[in-house]
């Protein structure tokens, strides 16, 4: 099964991380690749660089943001190939941000042909 691991954290909270977070992310990714679990993964630019797009009544509206200063925001993701939820939880727990943020695991929807 494929699971999307969404990485949520309060912006700036990584400052309290105990250790070298970039090195730990690098190590996690390597480990996931070596285990054949890694499908994809990226970090995202902050919400200050985000734009929101909506089409209403045929016209496209674009706004700056969204901003959510104090709440946890999406900062990146991994797409993981795992046998079951227990394995996905095991990997999610190894993502460095799990120590101060939240990893949301969502199974990918499978459409029947």
């Amino acid at each position, binding site marked *: 099964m494929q699971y999307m691991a969404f990485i949520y954290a309060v912006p700036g909270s990584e400052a309290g991380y105990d250790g070298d977070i970039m090195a730990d992310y690098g190590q996690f990714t390597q480990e996931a690749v070596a285990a054949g679990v890694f499908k994809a993964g990226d970090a995202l630019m902050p919400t200050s660089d985000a734009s929101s797009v909506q089409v209403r009544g045929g016209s496209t509206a674009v706004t700056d943001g969204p901003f959510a200063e104090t709440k946890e925001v999406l900062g990146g993701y991994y797409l993981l190939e795992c*046998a079951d*939820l227990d394995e996905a939880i095991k990997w999610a727990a190894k993502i460095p941000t799990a120590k101060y943020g939240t990893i949301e695991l969502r*199974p990918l929807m499978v459409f029947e042909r």
Partner: protein
Amino acid sequence: MNATLAHAYKADSGRVLAALIAQFRDFDLAEEALQDAMIEAARTWPRGGTPSSPSAWLLAVARRRALDRLRKLARAKDEALLQNLTLMAEDPPEEEAAQEIPDERLRLIFTCCHPALAQEAQVALTLRTLCGLSAREIAHAFLVPHATMNQRLTRAKAKIRHAGIPYKVPEGPEIATRLNTVLSVIYLIFNAGYAPRTPALSAEALRLCEGLHALQPKPETAGLWALMSLHMARDPARMDADNTLISLKDQDRTLWNHPAIARARTRLLHALAQSRPGPYQIQAAISALHCEAESWEGTDWPQILALYKALYKLSPTPVVALNHAVAKAHAGAPERALEALLKLETALFGYQPFHAAKADILAQCGHAARLEYDRAIALTTAPEELVFLRRKQQELP
């Protein structure tokens, strides 16, 4: 349902259902197939006689029915799948060969109590699949509408399927926490039967715990079993003729089930001897000390206080601190108990047992307690406890 069939269902439906779910990985299909087999049994057993192993018969027939249902689905969909099913059907499960039902209940209880499910869903699913209770019976026990319970079960089963919650006994470092989740579900079921008095639920919890222990003996599982057994053993003395609670202090100890106490004690000592203490073993040890005392006054209070201290170290929650404080009062130090209670006021304000305990201890210290009893009474729903608290309030000087 005839009596033999009802008995077979009661005794073995959990095991049969677990075997079906393990094979087909589908709760709904397994339930429907077992239902089909029950209907067939009701039709054929009265005429043809009861099979030598009713549950093996039910499993064999349910397997066939499940395959029939899958075949029908497959025919509508996919030829390759149909081929697979034909292979599956050729596998052993002949009625004669199926005398030994593989016990899949251990895997299933860990699936039902997976932490990715909400606790109320864990409880409902466990009662439905391992105890064979109907959605209606579970709804009744937890005082929710039937439709709500149906929806809760349906959503839990869908999440198991969609999120890939596995059918397996957990391994590695998470075993302890996963077992704790299972034990807390069992204890919740027990208490649901104990407080508003639906003894059937308490009996189911004991049966589940016994079964879990047989499949995977662990000290904490034995501890929980002993704890529940000790509660049950004191049950005959817990109420008076008017269905009012009698406090432990005033209970007629000759009414306690002493052989049951001895059995629980033996198993508890065996668990404790493995030197892997946990909250359930300690709570059972406290309960055992109460059960062994010939009288309230003769209770080994110093030992009980020491156990509460150990319990608080393992699970430092306000509720454990409350029980520790109450034990201090019983051990003859109500002023120290009151001191401890006042520190818990913010954490436990509005929690009925806190106000009931505070009222008792205020009274014991000779302080004004009437208002605190009012607070406790306002938070009480169980009628037997209402009467009990009002009586204590009236007895105030």
